[in-house]
Each structure stands twice: as structure tokens, then as C-alpha cells.
């Protein structure tokens, strides 16, 4: 009884806290929290696409270790680390909210309110855990062990979604968006977690190169590159299809998205196979 009361009080205070956020709460009152979350999903998606491209650009300097080490010197400045921690918020939100949408659309979970609550709770827990790990610094976790566990979990999520949507009438592109989404739901938060578990490994080019030369890690990196770039590309395509009226403009933009995605894929594969 008491536990229920406390829980309700906690939830009420979270909701009333959210309702105080200016601008956002106005939209929530007009169109509902789902609508606000959907906009957050779109905006965080775009932020993450830009971050992905920037990340690949940074990694491409592994070919010249001095440049990489110089860049990492900047990346590990305390203020930048703080922003890196903050940047985990869009990552985990986009991942978990995407998971919620997959459950809603393909698995018949219509219990929205509790799904939204769980999305927000889990986001909070993840961000706190990440903060603690950043604070504790190097935990020296084995890359192969960590990724073995995480890739199995990511593939299991992807297979679960694939089994559900594969036979449906949807286009292959739509299906792949959901399947890669389920894969990345675990793989990307894991990727972030790993980099904060072992910051020293990411700091020096030699250590990064040594890790990336392991064949299993190469497979992980290829899977990450393929799925993130596909997911990002289809996400951008979907936004363009929603808002651009003129067919010819949509075709041109889709073409640009494909070309940019392929260029970044080549960059990513070059990093994986020539290092």
C-alpha cells in the first residue's frame, strides 16, 4: 500500500515536473506526450546522424596516429567529457523510445503510459550509470568479452523483431529500419558504455589500432557501421518523405542521402580493414 502510494507520488512529481517545462508542456497539452516524444525522437535522430558522421570523421584520422592523439587530447578534456556524458541522453532516449515504438507498432503493446514511464526511467538509470562509470575511470574490461555478450544480445533483439516483421507486407526498407533499430537499441548504448569503461583504450591511437585489429572486433565494427548508416539514412529519408511536397525534390534528396551514406560506409570500412 505504502509502496504504491510512494510510487504514485513519485510518478505524479515526475509528470508535474515535466509539465513545468515551458514550450514543451504547451505542446503536450495540445497534442499529447506521445507527440512531444515523437518530435524528440526526430530531433535526437538528426543529432545522432550528425554525431555519427563526425565520429567516423574523427576515427578516420587513426591513419595518422599523431592527429588522432591530438584530437583525443581535446576529447578527454574534463569539460568535453561532461558534454560526452550529456550526449548520452539523446542516444539512450532515441534507443529506448525507438524500442517503445517497435513494441507499439509491431507487437501490439498499447499500454502507452507505462511504456513511456519505463522509457524515461530506463533513460535516467542508464545516464546515471554512465556518469558513475565516467567518474570511476578505467575499469579495464576485456573488449572481446564485453562485445561478445553485447553482440549476442543485440542480434537476439534484431532476430526477435525480424521474426515478427519479416513476413509482413511492408517494404524491405521499412523492415530493415526496425531490425537495425532493435540491433542498435542495445549495441549503441553498449558502445558508449564501453568507451567510458575503458577511456584509456580510446585515448591512444596505438591501443585503439591494436583492439581494432582483432578479427572479432572487426566484425562488430562492420555490423555497427552498416546498421547505423542504414538506420540514419532511412530515418532522414523518412523525414524528407513527410515534409517535402515536390516529388522531384524528394528524389534528389533521397539520392543525396544514399550518396552520403555510401561515402561514410566506405570511410568506415576503410578504417576497419586498413588499420
Amino acid at each position, binding site marked *: 500500500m505504502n509502496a504504491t502510494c510512494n510510487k504514485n507520488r513519485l510518478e505524479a512529481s515526475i509528470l508535474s515536473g515535466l509539465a513545468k517545462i515551458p514550450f514543451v508542456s504547451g505542446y503536450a497539452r495540445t497534442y499529447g506526450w506521445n507527440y512531444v516524444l*515523437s518530435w524528440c525522437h*526526430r530531433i535526437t535522430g538528426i543529432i545522432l546522424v550528425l554525431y555519427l558522421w563526425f565520429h567516423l570523421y574523427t576515427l578516420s584520422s587513426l591513419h595518422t596516429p599523431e592527429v588522432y592523439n591530438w584530437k583525443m587530447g581535446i576529447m578527454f578534456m574534463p569539460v568535453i567529457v561532461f558534454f560526452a556524458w550529456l550526449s548520452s541522453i539523446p542516444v539512450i532516449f532515441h534507443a529506448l523510445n525507438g524500442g517503445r515504438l517497435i513494441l507499439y507498432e509491431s507487437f501490439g503493446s498499447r499500454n502507452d503510459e507505462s511504456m513511456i514511464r519505463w522509457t524515461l526511467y530506463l533513460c535516467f538509470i542508464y545516464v546515471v550509470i554512465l556518469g558513475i562509470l565516467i567518474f570511476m575511470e578505467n575499469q579495464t574490461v576485456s573488449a572481446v568479452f564485453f562485445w561478445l555478450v553485447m553482440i549476442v544480445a543485440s542480434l537476439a533483439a534484431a532476430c526477435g523483431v525480424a521474426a515478427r516483421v519479416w513476413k509482413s507486407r511492408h517494404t524491405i526498407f521499412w523492415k530493415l529500419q526496425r531490425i537495425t533499430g532493435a540491433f542498435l537499441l542495445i549495441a549503441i548504448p553498449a558502445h558508449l558504455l564501453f568507451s567510458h569503461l575503458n577511456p584509456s583504450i580510446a585515448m591512444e591511437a596505438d591501443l585503439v589500432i591494436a583492439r581494432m585489429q582483432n578479427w572479432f572486433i572487426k566484425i562488430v565494427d562492420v555490423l555497427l557501421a552498416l546498421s547505423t548508416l542504414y538506420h540514419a539514412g532511412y530515418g532522414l529519408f523518412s523525414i524528407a518523405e513527410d515534409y517535402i511536397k515536390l516529388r522531384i525534390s524528394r528524389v534528389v534528396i533521397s539520392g543525396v542521402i544514399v550518396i552520403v551514406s555510401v561515402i561514410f560506409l566506405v570511410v568506415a570500412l576503410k578504417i576497419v580493414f586498413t588499420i
Partner: protein
Amino acid sequence: MADNYSITLDIKRYDPDTKKTWFQSYKLDAGRILRFVDLFRRINNEQDPSLAWGSSCEHGQCGSCAVRVNGKPLLACELLVENAVKDFGTTKFRVEPISIAPVVRDLVVDLEKAYEKVHRAKPYLIKRAPLPPQSSYYQLSPKEIERYEDATRCINCFSCADACISSHKNFIGPNAAMASIVRLMDPREEEKEERLKLLYSEEGIYRCHSSKACSFVCPKEIDVAHFIALAKEGAFRGDNGE
């Protein structure tokens, strides 16, 4: 609760002759159970006969009075002054036409244009299943009807289309999609394929991102997003490899 309110309506005007758009402010003292259509009528009678707005049944049954009040699409014939003050927490209201079709004048939009999408979704049985032997009518079980009964309450007010995150540029719209989905769920409809083709096209369910604004604003309290999600889920014969 007050009996009278001093209300300010900032109404978006549009003059098709000059192509000019502007906001015009009207102040009124209004009783608590007056509806927004009553306020528009009073403005016509007492302040400005040139203000154009639309309504027909004035009983929440035709959808022709949908407008945006402080950003929210709703039926002006259902919105009482006291509810508006309570829900929006103000006595000042910005009233605009809904955005789903070109504006004809002031708050009146070209509903013919808006209805084009609904017509494309064919909101009727395209091919009726043959009647059961020795029967002059179809009998649907309550269980069958229960699955889609809610959706049949739609009055095509286009509030859902106005609120949709996906915009209405390339999307057939939540109400039109639902009109087709209802007939997919109707055991009397035999033409499933044509309906599925529309729903699985680029202007169909791919434009829906489950933002659920449609369900949130629907004045008939239909969970529109649920019906569209059923289509995404592959809940009908023929859309899941059957």
C-alpha cells in the same frame, strides 16, 4: 465558477480578393455555456458581419466547424466557453482555420479538397461479399463489430490530420487511412487487395510515426493511432503473408 467571462478572440482572417492575412481581435462578454460557434455568430451580429466561419449541424456530427483554438484542432460547436477557459487556462484565444486544405476565407477551408483524400480511400464497401444463403441481409456478430465500431464514429472533421506530426503534404491522413482500415476489418468487404495497396504505399502507413496526436485531439475520442498500428502490425488477412 463564473457565470460570465470577458473573452478575447484573436481570429485569423484571410481575404481572398486581396490575398491578405491578419489577426483581428474581438472582445466579448460571454456566458459560460456558450459554444465557440455562438461566439462567432455573436461577432457576426454585433461587431463584424464580414467574419466567415463554417458550421452545419452544430451538434458535433458533421465536422464542418473544426478550427484551431490556441493551436489545438477541435470542433467549435462542442467547445463551451467555461471548458475553454479551464482547459487552456486563459480567457484569450487564438482562433485559426485548420491547415489541411487551402483557406477559402477567414476560418473556412476548402473541404472539397480535404475530402479528396477520403474519397481516394473509398469509405464504402468496394466489393460486397455475397449474402448468406436464404438471407436478405448480413449478420455481423457483436464481437466482429466491437473490433472496429469505434472507428465508425469518425465524422471527418480532419482534426487528426491537422495535428499529425507527419504533416498532410504526402500522407493520405489518419482519418482517410482509418476509413480504409475499417472496411478491411469489415467481414462484408471482399476487395482487400486494393485497400492494402493504398495503405502500404508511400502515402499510406509509412507516413505514420505513432505520435498519436490524432488519438489525442479526436473529438470523437477514437484511438485513431491504434487502427493504423493494426495495419502496421499486419493484423488483417493478406497483409501478413497469408
